[in-house]
């Protein structure tokens, strides 16, 4: 009997503290290889505590390591945060429909992340930057609450140093030690300077952030069909049968988590859906 609800135990080979409430763990796939697509997620299980869906944040070309950046917001993520190098985590996955990497080929690409939303978008950003010639103009926007909340700061500095991509970072609040932009991420959008008719936008962050980003991307002339967002709901099974992640007629776990804005537009206007 096939049992897809069984996790595969994997050992933590590295743990990095990212911000006050986020951390990254790197796991070793037992047979040395784990393939996934940008935007997909895994179910991570902590022995005796429970399971949570966590997006994959690593490089698609690095199959020997599985990277997850996690925010400590609940019982299971808290337990994940207390694990050390050498400890075991149960993994099921990868699950879900990820970012439209194939569709984005040959086009201008806007990648916009808000807060922890950089974690699910990072594999897409790396894929685009590592295969830069396959894309038109590349623009990355990243917004966070404060400078201390920025994920992967060293890597982001490297992205910003590239001359073949426009990478802008902004924070909502800052003191004088911060020399970068202060203001909401939507204020960066008007500087995208992509060709709206051939732009694919991938937006990842809280729903409210994606909602505002879409308003500003629409002002540039980018159609809802070309704006992709990653949705989030409670998830228990990740295979479309526990019913928790329903979002109208879709199961976020298998029909998403990535949707075009056109697919979810009417649902964004319904409260508590």
């Amino acid at each position, binding site marked *: 009997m096939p049992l897809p609800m069984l996790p595969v135990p994997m050992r933590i080979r590295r743990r990095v503290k990212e911000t006050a409430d986020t951390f990254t763990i790197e796991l070793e796939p037992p047979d040395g290889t784990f393939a996934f697509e940008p935007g997909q997620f895994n179910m991570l299980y902590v022995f005796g505590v429970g399971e949570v869906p966590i997006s994959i944040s690593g490089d698609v070309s690095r199959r020997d390591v599985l990277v997850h950046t996690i925010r400590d917001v609940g019982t299971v993520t808290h337990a994940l945060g207390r694990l050390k190098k050498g400890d075991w985590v149960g993994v099921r996955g990868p699950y879900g429909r990820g970012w439209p990497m194939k569709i984005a080929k040959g086009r201008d690409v806007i990648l916009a992340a808000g807060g922890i939303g950089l974690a699910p978008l990072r594999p897409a950003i790396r894929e685009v930057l590592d295969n830069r010639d396959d894309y038109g103009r590349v623009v990355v926007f990243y917004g966070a609450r404060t400078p201390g909340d920025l994920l992967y700061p060293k890597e982001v500095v490297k992205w910003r140093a590239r001359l073949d991509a426009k990478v802008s970072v902004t924070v909502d609040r800052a*003191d004088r030690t911060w020399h970068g932009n*202060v203001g909401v991420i939507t*204020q960066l959008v008007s500087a995208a300077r992509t060709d709206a008719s051939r732009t694919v936008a991938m937006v990842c*962050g809280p729903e409210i*952030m994606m909602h505002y980003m879409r308003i500003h991307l629409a002002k540039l002339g980018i159609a809802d069909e070309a704006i992709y967002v990653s949705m989030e709901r409670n998830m228990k099974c990740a295979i479309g049968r526990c019913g928790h992640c329903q979002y109208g007629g879709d199961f976020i776990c298998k029909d998403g988590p990535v949707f075009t804005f056109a697919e979810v537009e009417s649902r964004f206007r319904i409260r508590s859906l």
Partner: protein
Amino acid sequence: MKTHSIAEILSAHEFFSDMKPEHIEFISGCAKVSHFASGKFMILAGEPADNFYLIRSGHTAVEIEIGNQVRTIHSPGPGEFVGWSWILPPARWRYDVRVVEDVSAISFDAECVRKKCEADFEFGYHIYRRILKIVIERLMATRIQMIDMYA
């Protein structure tokens, strides 16, 4: 390197798009090019709002002092306008604007623009309408900032 006249620079800016050439010509007459070194204040809260600026290069920080902390609430950069307090009385600045990275800006004589708005309502309407658009955008941005979107 070809130097552009102020009128040419303004004509190319989104703010002045579709504005009558004579209006652009006029407001150019109220403007000059200014430079500010990093660390200096372009605007100081409480001072008369005699000028406002269109940043061409460099970065600034709109700052508020809260207790013993200085907080940046906005960081205008290239292409953005700085300063709105000049429009209506008492025409005094409300915030400090510090130069974070050397700024080259077009500086407008506020009194000159104000007078023209009063004397020529058509000109005033176009200026006010465009300013209103920016103020609405700022208000929207401030509201989003207020809701702590990334929490």
